[in-house]
């Protein structure tokens, strides 16, 4: 708890910024859904068939998993707030369309006949009768949308949109429950606040005459209109002001910036910060961080459409997943194939390896190592039947990992359990399993003092870290040809692991660690 409070005090400025950003995105999305959904909702009241189709489509869109929708949109609209807001709009649309439609069509047809009968035009009927009667329903729709949107916007962080999801996402990747809570609690409070305020607005705009007879309190028409207007204005301010500020900010963005991308885990962000500081100190190029990108499904489209200019990744990821190359465990060959492949297929430049590799390793406790005499992978293969494995799901199912180990080397562990995150460290330290998988530069490896088994069989695919750069970057900024290679072969596995440790365990920021590294190496 005290740790949580310390984190909160340290990050409160950042948290406030993220909260504001979160509100901006929510407001913009709800405003857009209101305009689009409201108009659609009104339009489909004229035609039952169209209504069924439109509501069906809106229902269907609601059922698309948000992460999938986000990934689907990145190639078309890039990364950042744009796909995020489109995604949130898609989810926020349904309640508004539905409630507008129900609110208007639910009005007693006799009333509309009376309205026609006394000579109100269609427009007068809509403005004087239908909308006032439907307003509470529409408002309830906005309320549901807004509350949902606060939640959905957290997902948007996976495409680098920022907001409170950024904090949650970081916490998830650093296995830091406090960080997750630091993002989740404000998001939750924000949702409650939105619900409360919009609930009040809903109550204020509900026409007095629609209440039960004994609850009706007469107010002069002017006073009633003022009350409704104030409520609607409040609602409008809540929606419009943050939207405008968000739009202004995104429009005022300098187009001519170098966009440094980073994936959504500590190592990626440290490397991003190292590049950013290096470039900022050595050149005059304006740099912008585009961080928290959720894996290749986001980074590759982002590179292609210019949402980012560079991002670090690993040869073992790029070869099979982007270039679809066959399995290969020779590091030099894999690197060479990746470099030429990326150039030919996408026109991307791939830097020299940065020096460290972040491949899979299998780790055991010191005690297990001693008991079973384990220092290498081949020794583990012999002892497997008497050991229990607790590994990440991807290790258990990826064809080049455990299945290959079983097929080619006949490995059969005593027991296999899928454990993700830092649960597997807890499991191995408490003696529930003896073997776990890890990434070479994992900070937790260092923290928990696990013993990594040397891959003497060239079994694991190489995961050399490289910087992937858009082809036009050197044309736009020729001076980078001198700067970026400074990091080639500059970071050892141990150095990287230590930097991760400083962030994930000791609580330093990625920028501090990056700066420390550059100073140590004499690069700045």
């Amino acid at each position, binding site marked *: 708890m005290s740790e949580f409070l310390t984190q909160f005090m340290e990050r409160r400025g950042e948290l406030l910024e993220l909260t504001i950003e979160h509100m901006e995105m929510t407001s913009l999305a709800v405003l857009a859904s209101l305009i689009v959904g409201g108009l659609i909702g009104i339009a489909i009241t004229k035609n039952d068939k169209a209504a069924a189709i439109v509501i069906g489509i809106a229902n269907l869109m609601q059922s698309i998993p948000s992460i999938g929708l986000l990934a689907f949109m990145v190639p078309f609209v890039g990364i950042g707030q744009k796909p995020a807001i489109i995604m949130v709009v898609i989810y926020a649309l349904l309640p508004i369309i539905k409630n507008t439609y129900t609110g208007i069509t639910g009005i007693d047809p*006799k*009333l509309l*006949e*009376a309205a026609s009968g*006394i000579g109100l035009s269609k427009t007068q009927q809509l403005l*004087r009768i239908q909308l006032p*009667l439907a307003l509470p329903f529409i408002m309830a729709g906005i309320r549901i949308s807004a509350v949902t949107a606060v939640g959905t916007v957290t997902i948007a962080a996976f495409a680098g949109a920022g907001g409170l999801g950024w904090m949650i996402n970081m916490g998830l990747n650093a296995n830091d429950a406090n960080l997750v809570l630091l993002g989740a609690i404000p998001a939750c409070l924000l949702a409650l606040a939105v619900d409360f305020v919009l609930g009040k607005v809903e109550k204020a705009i509900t026409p*007095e*005459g629609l209440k039960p007879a004994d609850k009706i309190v*007469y107010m002069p028409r002017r006073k009633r209109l003022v009350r409704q207007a104030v409520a609607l204005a409040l609602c409008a301010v809540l929606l419009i002001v943050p939207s405008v500020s968000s739009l202004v900010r995104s429009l005022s963005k300098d187009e001519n910036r170098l966009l440094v991308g980073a994936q959504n885990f500590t190592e990626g962000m440290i490397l991003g910060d190292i590049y950013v500081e290096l470039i900022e100190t050595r050149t005059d190029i304006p740099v912008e961080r585009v961080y928290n990108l959720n894996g290749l499904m986001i980074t590759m489209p982002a590179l292609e459409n210019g949402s980012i200019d560079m991002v670090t990744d690993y040869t073992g990821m790029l070869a099979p997943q982007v270039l679809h190359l066959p399995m290969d465990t020779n590091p030099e060959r894999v690197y060479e194939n990746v470099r030429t492949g990326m150039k030919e297929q996408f026109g991307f430049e791939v830097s020299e390896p940065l020096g460290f590799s972040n491949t899979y390793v299998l780790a055991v406790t010191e005690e297990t190592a001693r008991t079973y005499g384990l220092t290498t992978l081949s020794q583990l293969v012999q002892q497997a039947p008497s050991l229990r494995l607790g590994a990440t799901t991807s290790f258990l199912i990826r064809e080049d990992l455990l299945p290959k180990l079983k097929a080619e080397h006949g490995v059969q562990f005593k027991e296999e359990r899928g454990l993700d995150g830092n649960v597997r460290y807890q499991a191995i330290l408490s003696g529930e399993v003896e073997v776990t998988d890890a990434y070479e530069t994992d900070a937790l490896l260092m923290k928990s003092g696990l013993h990594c088994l040397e891959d003497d069989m060239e079994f694991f695919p190489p995961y050399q870290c490289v910087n992937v750069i858009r082809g036009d970057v050197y044309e736009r900024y020729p001076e980078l040809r001198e700067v970026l290679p400074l990091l080639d072969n500059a970071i050892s596995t141990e150095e990287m692991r230590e930097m991760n440790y400083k962030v994930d365990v000791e609580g330093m920021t990625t920028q501090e660690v990056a700066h420390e590294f550059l100073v140590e190496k004499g690069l700045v």
Partner: protein
Amino acid sequence: MIEFRNVSQSYKDHKVLTDINMTIQSGEFVVLIGSSGCGKTTLLKTINKLTSLAGGDLLIDGVSIRDIPDIALRRRIGYVIQDGGLFPHLTVEENISLLLETVGMPSEKIPARVDEVLEMVNLDPDTFRNSFPAQLSGGQKQRVGVARAFSANPDIILMDEPFSALDPVTRGELQNEVVKLQKRFHKTIVFVTHDMDEAIKMADRICIIQNGQIAQFDRPEEILKRPANAYVEEFVGKNRLWGNPAYIHAEDIMKKAVIHISKNRTVLQALQIMRHNTVDSLLVTSGREHRLEGIIWLKNLQEVKDYSASLEEYITQDYISVYADTSLQEIIDTVDYDASGIIPVVNHENELLGGLTKSGLLATLSKRYRRDSTEGVEE
């Protein structure tokens, strides 16, 4: 004046109205009535184009409604539906002023007009002006509906079963008030109902619709007495006439063959006639036209010595006569229940047309109640 000229209407393949021809005079109260689905409401809505005119033509004061834009037409015609058709989010005042605004009344004149029409329908403006429909009783809502329809002072008001959801007492009150307002302000009202009693009570003329055609369009009395066909007769109900004593006249229920004697006859002849018919009085007439001269009573003749004496000096005026067009209601009110004998029915020239006996009256009235007890279920 509203003229229907071969008005036809169909819904999908089904003909709802066929060749309706009818003229409603200005200031007339016309009730459209018929069983449900007969087309009466469609016919009503054709007038303000809530149902568009399919075939034929409809003229208001000589102008075809085809030549009047829908909205403009509706603003000239008042419209009342069940429950008044009030908008629940507006107060009584706003419900009325909304209409006044749309017809273009200057806003400073609106509040006064609202108060005026509320008073017209017997609602105290100070009490009800700021009420919402949810706070009103059914009757009050309907009064506001009526007030709204009268507010813009249209020549024509259409009413679509406005009172059918009200309790009988409230309904009765509103029926009376609407008729009064209609006469006072000389409005043309077209009123749809399925309640024959309501129609008879309110209408100047009733139009009975049968399967989209006019079965009969006439004054209530004519419809009651001379139904055009079996449908009308059944719809009206055979006993309906008896429920409306105002429409039953002496001539309808009198006995035509009534015993009478010329004033030139003798006492003896009179006594013989009385004995023969076992009656204690005789009507005395004169001339070919049977002008009623008076009555002679048996008790006055019994002391006469000279049987050949002329009747003339024994004639008395000790009787009550009624005119042929006196209503049953008045007859019942004027009958002297203690006196025996026959009630002569005469025309305005005092010529004897027939007679009513108390036993005959009793039979007439009891016939009504007998029917009610056996046929009342049908109503």
